């Protein structure tokens, strides 16, 4: 493809071109000037302030945030989604461009991979900051339930962080010997020299070393793409798996993934612009690089706009009750509505305009669009999280409560601190390692491009997506209760009452026979009832007939006790001289009690995950981690080559 770098380098002075590239790129590692010191000092200051805010939050509880029972997630979750989002920069730019062997990626990859690792570290820490009990974080391992999307997050983010570290490192190995030499020549601290030497794994330009490196890089580039896609899908599912308007959406996975790559690409362009200016890398970060990324950014912004339209237009047009209420808040004449439409204009349409115009050639336009997109995407995430929580199904207003959220001072401080930490980490990284890949820049664009033409990423076609098997436990034990046998125990107060169950006129009835001294009592009012857990349930009243019997329908189907028996109670209500303590009789004929029947599949809320789910997750993870292991084996092999030499 293009080799403007070599050309640009060659025309300056008469030095060998490699030396100039090295000099220029490693210049980023030279001691800082006054401005650099002030920059770092102020970032450290902001981080310390945020640390104080966090300690204050730890000491007093999340009460110091503006989050309350209705809006229980706020800017911390927004930051989490945002940082995980921009972490996707590294994946796309670096891995996809490496696989497709696009030559123009070379000055960009290192920066992209570094953004991934650093943004992931900051993003993951936001979740811990959001936790009410960070001291119990290990419970996620001890009591972890694989059915919870938070566990999916934990597993995939951990896998992603490990992978991006490995990827960043593997791509840096060939730079390490150069760095070690450079540090030695410049008389830098021996410790730094030692660090570079250790990290180099004894890499030298031999075919064997090169072969191992190519293999490791190829494997990482392939595996990191599905991992990255899974991470943001799972992040979206933390919202998508709930029954909430605005969250419970089938497009949330791809919507978040596109949003992540969108904001990630914008982040890379912004970072490129900053480093280009700060480290005077104009010769290496050419307008062409910005323009190519701008084309990508344009495509992504159109895609994101399309997803947004699809998401909200269907909700608006369909007009489902809760969706309408959400949209009235989100896009109506409220503060959120204003932000939403401002985002639409400044975060989407104006950037699209800047990117689509002929002025797309201008760096200023591209960088302006990227910055707008980055700010806009943070606001967009906020608008996804907060208004939904302010729109519960049972309107809080009906109880005189108006849920409202605006971040507190502590939350703002910690948020600013998170951004400062990200910038600080990025600055420090660029002080120790070259922010442009020296070896890749040195490579001749034509021939030396490592043959990372990796076979198509066979995205596990064999792996069907996890189909959750429904576990139905039908544990009913139904024993046939002896039917006819009705045993009656009779107490012996003055009025004698006999309670039996019998068929009268083909009706199933309870019959009470009242007598005194052997003579039937007529016209006595008798009340029948049956005891239940919390009280006595009246079955009915009847007046005794000539034969002294009163009757009431038998409560067919009423559950009995463990033995299928019912405890009946018969009371005489009148005449008053017969009123006495109630007669209690236990009769068979109660419906059998069911022990425990699950009438819903409990797979998702039982304490243990169903086997197919566990198997699928473990299988997917194994695929990824075995690839990591393969990469590490390549590195170990490289190290061994050094020992042999």
């Amino acid at each position, binding site marked *: 493809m293009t080799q403007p770098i070599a050309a640009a380098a060659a025309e300056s002075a008469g030095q060998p071109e490699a030396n100039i590239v090295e000099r220029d790129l490693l210049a980023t590692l030279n001691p800082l000037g006054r401005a650099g010191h002030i920059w770092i000092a102020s970032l450290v200051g902001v981080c310390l302030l945020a640390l104080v805010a966090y300690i204050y939050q730890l000491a*007093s*509880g*999340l*009460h110091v*945030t503006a*989050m*309350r*029972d*209705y*809006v*229980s997630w706020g800017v911390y979750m927004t930051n989490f989604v945002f940082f995980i989002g921009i972490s996707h920069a590294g994946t796309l730019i670096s891995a996809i461009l490496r696989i497709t062997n696009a030559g123009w990626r070379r000055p960009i990859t290192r920066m992209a991979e570094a953004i991934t690792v650093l943004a992931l570290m900051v993003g993951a820490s936001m*979740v811990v900051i*959001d*936790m*009410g*009990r960070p001291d*119990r974080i290990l*419970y996620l391992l*001890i*009591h*972890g*339930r694989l*059915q*919870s*999307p*938070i*566990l999916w997050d934990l597993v995939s983010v951990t896998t992603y962080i490990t992978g991006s570290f490995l990827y960043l490192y593997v791509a840096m190995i060939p730079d390490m010997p150069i760095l070690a030499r450079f540090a030695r020549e410049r008389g830098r601290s021996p410790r730094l020299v030692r660090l570079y030497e250790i990290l180099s794994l004894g890499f030298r330009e031999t075919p064997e070393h090169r072969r191992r490196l190519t293999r490791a890089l190829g494997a990482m580039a392939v595996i990191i793409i599905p991992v990255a896609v899974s991470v943001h899908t799972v992040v979206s599912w933390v*919202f998508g*798996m*709930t*029954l*909430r308007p605005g969250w419970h959406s089938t497009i949330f996975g791809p919507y978040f993934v596109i949003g992540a790559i969108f904001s990630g690409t914008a982040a890379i362009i912004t970072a490129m612009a900053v480093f280009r200016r700060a480290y005077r890398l104009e010769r290496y970060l050419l307008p062409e690089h910005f323009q190519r990324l701008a084309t990508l950014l344009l495509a992504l912004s159109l895609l994101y706009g399309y997803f947004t339209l699809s998401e909200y237009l269907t909700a608006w047009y369909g007009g489902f009750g809760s969706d309408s209420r959400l949209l009235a808040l989100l896009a109506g004449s409220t503060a959120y509505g204003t932000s939403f439409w401002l985002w639409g204009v400044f975060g989407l349409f104006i950037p699209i305009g800047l990117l689509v115009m002929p002025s797309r050639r201008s760096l200023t336009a591209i960088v302006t669009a990227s910055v707008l997109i980055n700010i806009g995407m943070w606001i967009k995430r906020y608008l996804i999280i907060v208004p939904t*929580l302010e729109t*519960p*199904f*049972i309107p809080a207003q*009906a*109880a*005189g*409560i*108006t*849920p*409202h*959220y605006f971040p507190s001072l502590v939350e703002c401080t910690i948020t600013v601190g998170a951004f400062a930490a990200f910038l600080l980490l990025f600055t420090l990284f660029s002080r120790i390692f070259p922010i442009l890949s020296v070896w890749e820049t040195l490579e001749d664009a034509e021939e030396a491009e490592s043959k990372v033409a990796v076979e198509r990423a066979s995205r596990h076609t064999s792996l069907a997506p996890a189909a959750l098997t429904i576990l139905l436990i039908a544990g009913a034990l139904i024993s046939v209760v002896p039917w006819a046998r009705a045993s009656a125990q009779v107490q012996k107060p003055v009025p004698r009452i006999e309670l039996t169950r019998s068929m009268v006129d083909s009706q199933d009835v309870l019959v009470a026979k009242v007598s005194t001294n052997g003579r039937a009592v007529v016209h006595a009012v008798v009340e029948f009832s049956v005891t*239940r*857990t*919390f*009280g*006595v*349930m009246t079955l009915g009243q009847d007046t005794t007939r000539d034969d002294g019997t009163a009757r009431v329908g038998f409560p067919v189907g*009423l*559950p009995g006790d463990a033995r299928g028996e019912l405890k009946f109670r018969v009371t005489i209500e009148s005449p008053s001289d017969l009123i006495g303590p109630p007669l209690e009789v236990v009769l068979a004929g109660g419906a059998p009690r069911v*022990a*425990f029947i699950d*009438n*819903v*599949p409990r797979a*998702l*809320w039982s*304490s243990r995950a169903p086997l197919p789910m566990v198997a699928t997750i473990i299988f997917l993870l194994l695929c990824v981690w075995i690839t990591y292991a393969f990469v590490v084996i390549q590195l170990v092999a490289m190290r061994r080559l050094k020992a042999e030499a």
Partner: protein
Amino acid sequence: MKMPRREFLRAGLLAAGGLTAGTVGADRLLGAGAKSSGPRAAATLALTPDGELVVTPSAEYAALAQTSDEVRRGVPGRRWVMVFDLAACDGCGQCALACAKNHFIPTDREYLRIFKMQDSPDLAPYWFPRPCFHCDNPPCTRVCPVGATFKREDGIVLIDNERCIGCRFCMAACPYSVRVFNWGRPNDPPEAHARGYSPEWGYPRRVGTVEKCDFCADMAREGKLPHCASHCPMGAIWFGDENDDAVTNSAGKTVRLSKLLRDRAGFRYMEELGTKPRVFYLPAVNRQYPAPNEPGANHGNLPRGGETQSAQ
């Protein structure tokens, strides 16, 4: 969870070699809270699983008697159920007050909240008390990453505040906004410390953890109605065991559940969500009281709402 404490108690007993010493040991173990229950207040002679006799304060006995397994399993053979008669509820808020008092609920939250609902401007308003629905297909319990909230065999959904990590995913997942959070450090009265902690009553509270209506699991275990049901002056709250096919209200009246739901056209709130609540409602037809907004109606005496979030 309870085990170490019980083991410790027994160890103390053996060392002291006497019942009296055991009681003292128990008092000391139970901490400051136990003292407020008064010296020698209601002691229970209990037999440990290993056949030893111990004397413990009665209140503590309840906690000691239940291993965490029993708390997580629930009362065998029971399926607790609640029915709100919207035709009888006049929105007085006594249920929420009784609940708050007996659970020592701070003023910034409610387990049982009364909403003044009006489904459309043309339709009559009605009072809508909302406890936790203890769904049979609970969305909250699905998403808990650590199994801190759990569904029992007797239908109750509880939270173990000794395990909750405070991620608040369950709060986001509950479509009924039932769950509340200990945002600040709890300030429970001394009485709340008297019986020790159990998920069945949820206090003493712990900072950074989620809580909610517990269906008064401890009361049901003893065969007593929940505080809301027993304090309703209108008898509008029915509670019972579905396996019994009967529910009882504050007037002591017990009726057949299946018949009540059939005759009065009972329904569950937002059945379309598929959560299968264990709380039923009887529609507000033939009201026995002035509807909200009518002359003489209870209005605005929603006892504790309004303070929750508007303060911020």
